[in-house]
């Protein structure tokens, strides 16, 4: 009963959020985001879908606390304190996010080390996430020795090892080849189901959005973009590309982007 009640709890609530960048002399640019409204439940897999340049990454960076909004409200777990550690961020480029001078193991243990978790405990946790992310046998390798997909697994494991409540993912599979991407998508669903995290996943790939998300927020083309439509995807996992309702939804969503 408790777990069901928790599932309905709101994780992230955004009201009338806007964002404009200011340049060096303090001039404001046009609004990148305007009147963004968004509610995400705890444990939900939420997709932010939109074409390139619509500001979806900007929105994710604001949720992450990397950027300040220009106006509006952002509430995370009924708290608008900017405690960064309960959000884990998976970057698009593993090469720019991972620490190349640390091994797989050390990368995954980084957050725990910074929090001064005792070495024994850290080892156990790192081992657990190495296993979860399918990185067994790669402990002592350096990132440059791994393939693109493996690097993203390290990034995912590194973020999860800090046990964040919310997982923010910025087109994490965008740079992978199609085959690896499929595998990673399946893996992500498995990990999400095992860990019960709230996930916000940014993508411009409708198929990816439909394979992964429970809810899809469609962002309008910028400037002043906002979430123009929301779709509930009520299909069981693992989802099939050939499924009739899958294709129906695909065409529906595609129609938003057809001029």
């Amino acid at each position, binding site marked *: 009963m408790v777990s069901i009640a928790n599932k309905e709890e709101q994780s992230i609530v955004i009201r009338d959020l806007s964002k404009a960048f200011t340049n060096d002399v303090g001039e404001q640019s046009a609004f990148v985001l305007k009147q963004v409204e968004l509610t995400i439940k705890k444990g939900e897999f939420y997709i932010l879908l939109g074409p390139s340049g619509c500001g979806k990454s900007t929105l994710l960076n604001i949720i992450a606390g990397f950027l300040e909004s220009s106006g509006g409200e952002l509430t995370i777990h009924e708290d608008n304190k900017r405690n960064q550690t309960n959000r884990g*961020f998976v970057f698009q480029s593993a090469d*720019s996010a991972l*620490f190349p*001078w640390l091994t797989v193991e050390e990368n995954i243990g980084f957050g725990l080390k910074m929090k001064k978790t005792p070495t024994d405990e850290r080892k156990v946790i790192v081992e657990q996430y190495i296993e979860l992310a399918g990185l067994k046998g790669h402990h002592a390798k350096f990132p440059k020795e791994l393939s693109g997909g493996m690097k993203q697994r390290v990034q995912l494991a590194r973020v999860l090892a*800090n046990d964040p409540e919310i997982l923010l993912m910025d087109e994490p599979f965008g740079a992978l080849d199609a085959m690896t991407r499929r595998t990673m998508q399946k893996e992500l669903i498995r990990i999400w189901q095992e860990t019960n995290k709230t996930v916000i996943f940014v993508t411009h790939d409708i198929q990816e959005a439909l394979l992964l998300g429970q809810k899809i927020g469609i962002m309008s083309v910028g400037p002043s973009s906002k979430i123009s439509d929301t779709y509930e995807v009520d299909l069981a996992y693992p989802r099939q590309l050939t499924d009739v309702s899958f294709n129906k939804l695909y065409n529906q969503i595609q129609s938003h982007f057809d001029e």
Partner: protein
Amino acid sequence: MNSIAQTEIIKGNIQVKKRSFRVGNKLLKTGLISWVGLLAIWTIAAHFSDPQFLPSPLATLQAAIVLGSDGSLFVYMGYSFARVLAGWVLGNLVAIPIGLFIGTNKVVRSLFEPILNFVRFIPPLAFITLFMMWFGIGEQSKVFLIMYATFFVVTINTLTGVLSISEDKIRSAKSMGATSVQILLHVIVPAALPYIFTGARLAMGSSFMAIVGAEMVAANQGVGFMIWNARLYFQTDWIFVGLVVLGLMGFCMDRAFGFFGKKVLNRYNVIS
């Protein structure tokens, strides 16, 4: 038409060629060919010239033995090397933190960068007289001069290293709960290390330039003094001993530093 035997012979030839190519490649990598070539050209050139003008490698070696037999050569080398090492180490110790500080702080950077880019074009040699006035003619002024020669190269390299760190690395460390100090020590320093290493390595070269200049102007010891002194006695061979010894000292110091980089800093991807 080739018979089998002929083909075998051809194959054999190719193998011999391949093998000799491999041996040649290995030889090339040791650098032995370059050294022998240089010595040969030097010998031939010296053969057609006056030994007062261009002494041969052999004459230079003989001069080195003479200078070495009473130990004076080694004392000079020791002095020069100790000055370079002290100034270079101290220069790095000052330059690296300053480079990190300027690189991580926007306001400080806009304050310091213009001055940095002005002063760094003033060569150390231009400061010799001034440094002697300020710090005396003893060791202090020479060590300061080397520090000056080291400072700008290392500071600017460190600064560039800090600026080249991807925002993602800093952000990911932050979101994993690292404090600003932890980010500096565990992300910024290791990420900038290849740049710092290269800067320190380049600074070695400028250090040797500065020390020889300083020793020529004001010193009773050191390789620079030896070269300058040789002029008085028209001992061209001593000058050549000095040049070779300088090259050798720099070469060894660079190799030692490169070895240190390879063994200790390999995971930071330093170029050694």
